[in-house]
């Protein structure tokens, strides 16, 4: 039963190129402390993953972290682009906003200014 499940997943996944975290072009970090989760961080994370799956983005990874001291703006998503020292922090995220960040920022390279709460260098 269990092995069969795994085989099913492998069949559907077909042949995927292994991607190590360090190789990713874009790393998205979602704050998943208690207050982040309460504010909807799981939906935001799920939307990011869903866009990666749908758009076939093999150079983007999503990681999670605990509280980031930005509780009043949660859910929070940080965008780290390889070789770019500026980290863009988005606040008050929703799954719709997360999908836009993928479309505009991650794919097109244009940060969504109205959702940005902080740029860290």
């Amino acid at each position, binding site marked *: 039963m269990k092995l069969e499940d795994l085989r099913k997943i492998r069949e559907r996944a077909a042949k995927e190129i*292994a991607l190590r975290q360090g190789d990713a072009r874009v790393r998205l970090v979602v704050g998943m402390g*208690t207050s982040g989760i309460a504010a909807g961080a799981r939906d935001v994370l799920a939307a990011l993953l869903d866009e990666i799956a749908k758009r076939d983005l093999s150079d983007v990874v999503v990681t999670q972290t605990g509280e980031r001291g930005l*509780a009043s703006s949660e859910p929070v998503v940080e965008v780290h682009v390889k070789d770019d020292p500026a980290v863009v922090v988005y606040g008050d995220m929703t799954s719709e906003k997360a999908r836009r960040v993928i479309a505009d920022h991650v794919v097109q390279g244009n940060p969504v200014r109205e959702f940005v709460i902080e740029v860290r260098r």
Partner: protein
Amino acid sequence: MLESLDLHLLDLVQNAREAGARRIAIRWTCDEASDEVALEVVDDGRGMDADTLAAVERGFYSTKGQRSVGLGIPLLRQTAEHCDGRFSISSRLGEGTTVRASFRRSHIDLPPFGDVAATFLSILVTSEDRWVSILYRCGGEVDLDTAELRETLGGASLQSPGVLRALQEFLVERVGREG
């Protein structure tokens, strides 16, 4: 605040991660005969001494940074006890922590299960190099761990698009969408 059981589970998993756990075992089971739903998260993180444990149970204690108020555990306890269930947390310094919460399934105030498939997917694909197992038996069944998954996938990232799609589809098929 945490309006569904899957979000409580996610919070427990986050606690385990913050405690430095390398291994996290999740169980979510339903027993029809006893009309019970039970959640359990066992981790091998740094654990807590008796004083810290007592503070966590009271609430407003957190190691997660000054903005956090550490309400996840007391909220879960309150929900479990209110729904005719039980709550327990046991921990040993240097060995890990086990949290269990049960609920009467037919209790009118039992929170919804939530989007269990999305929560399981989030937990699995952000596990990084941790070992995480999920056993879910509530109508649908999931019995997976990240080591098996990685081995089966031949080293492909759990976040590569094809794997994500497959896992998504698999989990939705097994546990349904919103519960």
